[in-house]
């Protein structure tokens, strides 16, 4: 900045000298209508009609110097004050011969808000609080060469126009020093933020942070040669980084932290950046050492030493806890990590401890064989692969489930208590970035029978309305176990259930062709009076009364020959049928056999699905009736 030095003596009164100074114009700085008045007492008054600093303009600026000295070699102003700045004492020194200058400001409870007039528009502007300390800038003919600050903030607030970068009640100290040689700035800073809150979208942080850093800056890059950052309740991170100014991107970075508290680290510094999703709704636990190496636009190496780490989603859908392991991932070389875990839960079902060897090769992760204890049984996982194609993560695995007690499983999952054991095989499950599909037949043993699920597909699994489609074919289910489970009234026998062309939208049935019928073979067939009443009560009070009126009320159990019922669900309406067509559109659901025998007829061939579910739940009204033979 070249100071101006066309002085014109305008008036010489008796006791003071008035000077009019030429306009000053420099990049980021200009002044017009400058007048300097020098009273005899050694003070000075500088008035500037219009001052432009950065994009800001001030009118009628008045700087008073308690002590002003002017010689052919230099000009200095001590004890300067400015009407627009309260609590600020200015010192200005300018050497005419060297061109060197220095401006310093001693701040004493100076309201932060008044500095807004000097700051460029896009940065958030101070809105309240006070500053105390010292600010100093100096330079020469070549421009600014030194910058020093040692400032204490008292309840400082700031905000940008849209409120996305704002702070309130900040307290702490900022020390900063920078010097320039040719085009290279060397800098050092120390920030101790004691209290207050900051919102820097999307981060919301509170006091307790500290940072000490040093580095350099030139036209092409900002270098952080070393930085130590204290993250409250999370730990301490050491950082070295290089920011490419031309590309506006991180060029290199190494970040290290020991024994970082994962819960706080994730909640405060990672989760705000995540979109809605399972991970965004999860909590992390435990501690970790982290060593992250970033270069050439990508992570080159990441070492994670996990100590009793864990992850659990807020909805309690999954959890993995007590995770320990030393994971040394490299972008360009295969590595294996042994990861041990103490336990977890999936959809309420507890998982036991295990240890897996995870193969890692770049963005591909695999487990050849891993055992996951599930209640009293185990899930054996084979050929698990997680990999990235383009931007989408894909995974696949095969598994088999051995001998899990259905009683424990149903209790843990919050279902009605079921008996028997759960076992099955899962040939291959894959996720292609949009759809989860099962190749082959998913087979489970339940209710002493089998369930085979084929052509299972789950589209949009993490979206608003997941769509599940497939076929379920159940064979030889034990009615005794089944009816006991659902408190329907005891029945004995075996049934096959087919639910084909099943489609669930948002987990609600949208379509299926279901058929239930007695299994082939010889086995005891009995139906209790309660079950008959419940089935027939689906069809109204009359049916129940029919039993009550007859001698059949004296029997606890009846024999039957066959059971059959079908429902084709389409557009919210279930088209029903039974064992045969019966007369007048009626159909038999239970066909009697043995002594005493009972037949249950259905008369309604069409019912809304919602109503059927309500009826099943209440077992009250409808259009069925027991025909006593």
């Amino acid at each position, binding site marked *: 900045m070249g100071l101006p030095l066309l002085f014109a003596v305008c008036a010489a009164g008796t006791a003071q000298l008035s000077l009019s100074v030429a306009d000053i114009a420099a990049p980021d700085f200009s002044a017009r209508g400058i007048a300097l008045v020098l009273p005899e007492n050694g003070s000075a008054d500088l008035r500037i009609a219009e001052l432009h600093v950065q994009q800001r303009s001030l009118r009628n600026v008045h700087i008073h110097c308690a002590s002003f000295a002017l010689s052919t070699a230099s000009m200095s102003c001590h004890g300067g004050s400015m009407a627009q700045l309260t609590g600020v004492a200015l010192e200005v020194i300018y050497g005419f011969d060297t061109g060197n200058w220095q401006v310093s400001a001693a701040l004493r409870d100076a309201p932060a808000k008044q500095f807004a007039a000097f700051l460029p528009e896009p940065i958030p502007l101070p809105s309240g609080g006070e500053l105390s300390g010292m600010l100093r800038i100096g330079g020469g003919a070549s421009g600014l060469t030194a910058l020093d600050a040692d400032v204490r903030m008292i309840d400082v607030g700031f905000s940008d126009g849209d409120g996305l970068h704002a*702070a309130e009640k900040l307290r702490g100290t900022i020390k900063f020093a920078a010097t320039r040689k040719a085009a290279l700035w060397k800098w050092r800073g120390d920030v101790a933020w004691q209290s207050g*809150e900051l919102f820097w*979208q999307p*981060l*919301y942080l509170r006091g307790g942070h500290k940072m000490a850093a040093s580095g350099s800056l030139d036209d092409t890059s900002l270098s952080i040669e070393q930085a130590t950052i204290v993250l409250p309740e999370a730990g301490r991170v050491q950082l070295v980084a290089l920011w490419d100014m031309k590309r506006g991107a991180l060029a290199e970075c190494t970040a290290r932290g020991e024994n970082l508290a994962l819960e706080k680290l994730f909640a405060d510094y990672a989760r705000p950046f995540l979109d809605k999703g399972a991970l965004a709704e999860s909590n992390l636990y435990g501690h970790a050492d982290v060593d992250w190496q970033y270069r050439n636009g990508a992570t080159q190496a990441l070492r994670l030493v996990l100590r009793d780490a864990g992850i659990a989603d807020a909805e309690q859908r999954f959890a993995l806890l007590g995770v320990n392991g030393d994971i040394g991932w490299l972008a360009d070389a295969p590595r294996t990590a042994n990861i041990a875990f103490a336990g977890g839960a999936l959809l309420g079902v507890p998982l036991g401890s295990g240890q897996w060897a995870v193969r890692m090769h770049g963005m591909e992760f695999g487990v050849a064989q891993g055992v996951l204890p599930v209640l009293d049984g185990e899930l054996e996982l084979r050929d698990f692969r997680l990999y990235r194609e383009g931007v989408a993560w894909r995974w696949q695995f095969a598994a088999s489930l051995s001998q899990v007690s259905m009683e424990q499983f149903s209790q843990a999952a919050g279902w009605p208590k079921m008996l028997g054991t759960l076992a099955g095989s899962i040939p291959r499950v894959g996720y292609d970035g949009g759809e989860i599909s099962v190749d082959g037949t998913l087979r489970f043993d339940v209710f002493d029978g089998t369930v085979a699920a084929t052509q299972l597909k789950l589209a949009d699994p993490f979206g*608003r*309305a997941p769509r599940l489609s497939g076929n379920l074919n159940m064979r030889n289910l034990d009615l005794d176990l089944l009816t006991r489970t659902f408190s329907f009234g005891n029945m004995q026998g075996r049934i096959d259930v087919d639910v084909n062309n099943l489609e669930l*939208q948002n987990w609600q049935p949208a379509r299926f062709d279901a058929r239930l019928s007695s299994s082939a073979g010889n086995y005891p067939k009995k139906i209790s009076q309660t079950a008959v009443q419940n089935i027939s009560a689906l069809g109204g009070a009359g049916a129940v009364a029919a039993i009550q009126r007859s001698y059949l009320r004296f029997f606890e159990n009846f024999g039957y020959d066959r059971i059959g019922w079908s429902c084709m669900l389409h557009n919210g309406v279930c088209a029903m049928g039974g064992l045969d067509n019966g007369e007048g559109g009626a159909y038999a659901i239970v066909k009697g056999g043995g002594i005493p025998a009972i037949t249950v007829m259905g008369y309604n061939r069409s019912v809304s699905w919602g109503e059927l579910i309500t009826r099943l739940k209440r077992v009250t009204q409808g259009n069925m009736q027991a025909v006593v033979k």
Partner: protein
Amino acid sequence: MNAMIKYFVAIVALTAALNVSAAADLEVNTPGINAIKQSMQTRHAQLAPYYDSGAVGLTADGMIALRDAGAVPLAQRQAVNALVAAENGDRSALYAEIAKANGHPEWQAEIRSTFAQRWIQRAQPKWWVQSGGGWKQK
């Protein structure tokens, strides 16, 4: 709760009213549309205080926007941002799903603009709505 009921009534009235004025069946029901509506209804209880305080307003293009972040405490600002983003995601999806369910995906813009007018018409007194490029209070 009262605001919630009004909101339900508004949605029903809105879809019914729109049904008359546009060729598209805006009452069309698919599980997808139901899921979106349900998600919007659940979220409305969280958003209502911010409509009331003027922090969030209804835009002219059938979306909502954070119009005065200063009215939201710093600690809640990101949560409000996330609510606004999620609501706008649902609204876009709703317009697209209704157009798709009508068998005319190209009607989406028209459906959106009809919805926009009605959302604004049915906004409660003192809520902020966008009109003519600026914000005004109903």
